[in-house]
């Protein structure tokens, strides 16, 4: 075991992690721990764009953007956070431009903008051009640009270091004459993939930026490595997870594969058709049609298929039609997307519609934070020194449904905030003694996985988990399907204790790490399902067929899931609620 000492340790080198690192690295001694080489992070897969009310091509302002975000999130958005994000969006885009990001340009040489689902002018009057983009590889360019600037600022990376545990100590604090125990960050435990050794990083601040958890589903746009590690670590250490029932299904995944075709396709004019050639979104969202928010489009698609209007031999997908667009226009704006269709399905998008179906895409929920990116241990207690940003976090700017382009924005705005806050805290705080034997739990975890010889295969358990999640916790949910899912997850967890890891070596033992990741996936699937069970209403990305209406009276609250072995009927997940923060917009019916 080796011990390293840094002011700030950042877990994850995606967009959020590197944006934080650029800030923190210039203020305090910072290390970035990442299980992938930074440029392999999934931020690079984002295609469409990053929105900001720059008003470069048409009238726009950040208040409209706030409104769209709040409405898109079905009013479950914390409005103080949404305001911060919409306001700082402009600076966030300009920051990136100054760092060198090659945005597409208008004829005047300004940053070009295009339409994206749910982004409107003047509180829903008409679609607005708000998304800044670099062809259809905006995420790629953000990731590259941030990495480039990390190189520029000599950020210290520990590549292929898996963080497996968070070290916290309980400290006595006296608030209003009352003494109680409060968690404080001491560092993290990480596993060096190359050598198989554990490394402890002592740190004054820790920033979690480890991304999403899409791999709980089978059909997903997410990378194999998005296994919810950060959420899982926090959860196991007693930190709650907020709004985990809200998972976004992106309408246009390549049918059967889940590979994403960006919403930019529809932003540029592509439309959805069913097997009868009908542009069915005209029925579901008469005003903005194909550019309605993702949850609505995804459900409409699933509904078309359910009602027998699906295309293809098994009638299990719908069609994305770009054939009325100029090939030159498609090439200029959507080159990667057309390549995906050609490479993976052998479909020529110039002349043929592309088979698509909703794909698991984005976790709206995550580790709860305030707008300072400080992690909360309950509804309002901050954990000193612990920060989170990006998809792993839930500042709640996305509420129950994230608008397209708001995530790349989120990672930049709150990544930056987290980096600054973490460094500033580290400059004033002292190191906390790391607990004795900081690695016992992690060693136990690894040894259990390595030495158990029950013969169960990790891949099989994972597949069964993904199957049940796809079948029962997808766009349509009912009490029945959710209970069934929980039951299955419980049996999978039991089988998980009997897995066999074939690779017994130390060097690059990805077999072992996949087993560990599966543990996180099981935990997260459980939390997501339990939270979905708890929310007996339909809102945003969460649609309960048995409760198809939004129920503001009982459920205009965030859910907070805690690890609690005594909550046996929900598989050890206890659910509580947290009020939503309103500033200027009161809930209205969400119509497009």
């Amino acid at each position: 075991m080796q011990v390293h000492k840094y002011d700030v340790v950042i877990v994850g080198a995606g967009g959020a992690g590197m944006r934080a690192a650029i800030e923190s690295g210039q203020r305090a001694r910072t290390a970035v721990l990442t299980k992938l080489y930074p440029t392999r992070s999934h931020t690079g897969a984002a295609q469409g764009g990053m929105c900001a009310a720059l008003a470069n091509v048409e009238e726009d302002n950040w208040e409209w953007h706030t409104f769209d975000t709040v409405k898109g999130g079905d009013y479950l958005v914390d409005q103080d956070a949404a305001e911060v994000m919409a306001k700082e969006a402009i600076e966030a885009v300009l920051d990136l431009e100054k760092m060198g990001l090659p945005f597409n340009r208008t004829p005047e040489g300004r940053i070009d903008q295009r339409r994206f689902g749910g982004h409107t002018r003047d509180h829903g009057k008409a679609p607005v051009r708000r998304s800044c983009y670099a062809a259809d590889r905006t995420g790629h360019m953000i990731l590259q640009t941030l990495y480039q600037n990390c190189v520029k600022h000599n950020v210290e990376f520990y590549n292929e270091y898996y963080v497996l545990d968070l070290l916290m100590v309980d400290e006595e604090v006296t608030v209003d004459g009352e003494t109680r125990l409060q968690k404080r960050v001491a560092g993290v435990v990480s596993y060096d993939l190359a050598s198989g050794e554990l490394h402890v990083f002592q740190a004054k601040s820790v920033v979690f930026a480890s991304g999403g958890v899409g791999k709980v589903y089978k059909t997903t746009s997410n990378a194999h490595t998005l296994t919810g590690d950060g959420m899982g670590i926090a959860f196991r250490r007693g930190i709650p997870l907020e709004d985990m029932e809200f998972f976004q299904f992106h309408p246009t995944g390549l049918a059967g594969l889940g590979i994403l075709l960006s919403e930019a396709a529809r932003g540029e004019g592509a439309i959805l058709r069913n097997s009868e050639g009908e542009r069915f979104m005209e029925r579901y969202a008469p005003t903005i049609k194909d550019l309605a928010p993702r949850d609505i489009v995804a459900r409409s698609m699933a509904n078309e298929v359910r009602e027998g209007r699906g295309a293809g031999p098994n009638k299990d997908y719908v069609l994305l039609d770009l054939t009325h667009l100029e090939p030159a226009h498609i090439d200029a704006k959507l080159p990667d997307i057309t390549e995906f269709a050609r490479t993976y399905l052998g479909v020529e998008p110039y002349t043929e519609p592309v088979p698509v179906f909703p794909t698991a895409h984005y976790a709206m929920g995550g580790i709860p934070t305030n707008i300072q990116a400080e992690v909360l241990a309950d509804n309002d207690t901050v954990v000193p020194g612990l920060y989170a940003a990006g998809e792993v976090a839930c500042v709640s700017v996305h509420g129950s449904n994230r608008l397209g382009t708001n995530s790349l924005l989120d990672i930049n705005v709150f990544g930056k905030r987290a980096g600054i806050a973490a460094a500033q805290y580290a400059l004033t705080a002292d190191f906390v003694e790391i607990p004795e034997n900081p690695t016992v739990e992690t060693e136990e975890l690894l040894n259990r996985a390595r030495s158990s010889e029950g013969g169960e295969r990790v891949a099989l358990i994972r597949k069964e988990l993904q199957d049940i999640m796809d079948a029962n916790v997808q766009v349509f949910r009912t009490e029945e399907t959710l209970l069934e899912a929980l039951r299955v997850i419980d049996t999978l967890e039991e089988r998980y204790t009997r897995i066999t890891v074939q690779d017994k070596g130390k060097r690059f033992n990805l077999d072992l790490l996949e087993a560990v990741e599966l543990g996180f996936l099981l935990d997260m699937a459980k939390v997501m399902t339990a939270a979905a069970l708890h929310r007996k209403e339909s809102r945003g990305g969460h649609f309960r067929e048995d409760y198809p209406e939004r129920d503001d009276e009982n459920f205009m609250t965030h859910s907070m899931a805690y690890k609690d072995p005594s909550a046996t009927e929900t598989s050890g997940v206890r659910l509580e609620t947290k009020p939503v923060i309103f500033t200027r917009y009161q809930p209205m019916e969400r119509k497009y």
Partner: protein
Amino acid sequence: MSTETMEKEPASKVELAPGVGGGGEIPTFDITLKVRRYNPEVSDEAHWDEWKLTMYGTDRVLDALHKVKWEHDGSVSFRRSCAHGVCGSDAMRINGRNRLACKTLLKDLDTSKPILVEPIKGLPVEKDLIVDMEPFFQSYREIMPFLISKGHEPAKERLQSAEERDRYDDTTKCILCAACTSSCPVFWTDGQYFGPAAIVNAHRFIFDSRDDAGDMRLEILNDKEGVWRCRTTFNCSEACPRGIQVTKAISEVKQAILTRKI
């Protein structure tokens, strides 16, 4: 390039040609996958392992590797993440050529013969298909891959015309997968050559109208291990999964150094 989107609304309803949308029956087929194994914890020698697998129409080499790892031998090691050709994790040598495993459809390969999978060449092999990427990233870091702009920052964005933006568009696509550098016969010889990927990323900044440090990068690449070692073998251009015209970019950098010096 204008931002004009669709001016005319597409039809509400169209006749679809029968069987439209590709898809159709997905046939299965059998393949033999041969993987070059190496694990220094076990032996200093490499060897080939072979599996027979049944795969489906849209499966890629990555799916075959996963099938082996998940169902047959968990110790087979390789990097991967995104599974659709955008993260650059899984460049490897497939049937003798550098490709991304996640972008190479099995049905496009000759399935009547074994499919050979080896680590990329020229970088130290760590285990099975995993190589040490540090030398590769070191070269990348050395060419100063970040925008350097003198003069004070404008309040808003720097202006750049669509043509100026176009000038370096191709080289912004790079995902640092190393398929190019590890396909280069010159890089194989002694590993000292900066390699095509570093040059591509230098190109991205040298030809960016907003950047002021082009001269410094040209000076770095004027090194004896720099652009002049390129013998225009085009392996890099063929290997690049992003379709970047790598050799062309290198040529443009050579020209830029020449015109600056003469």
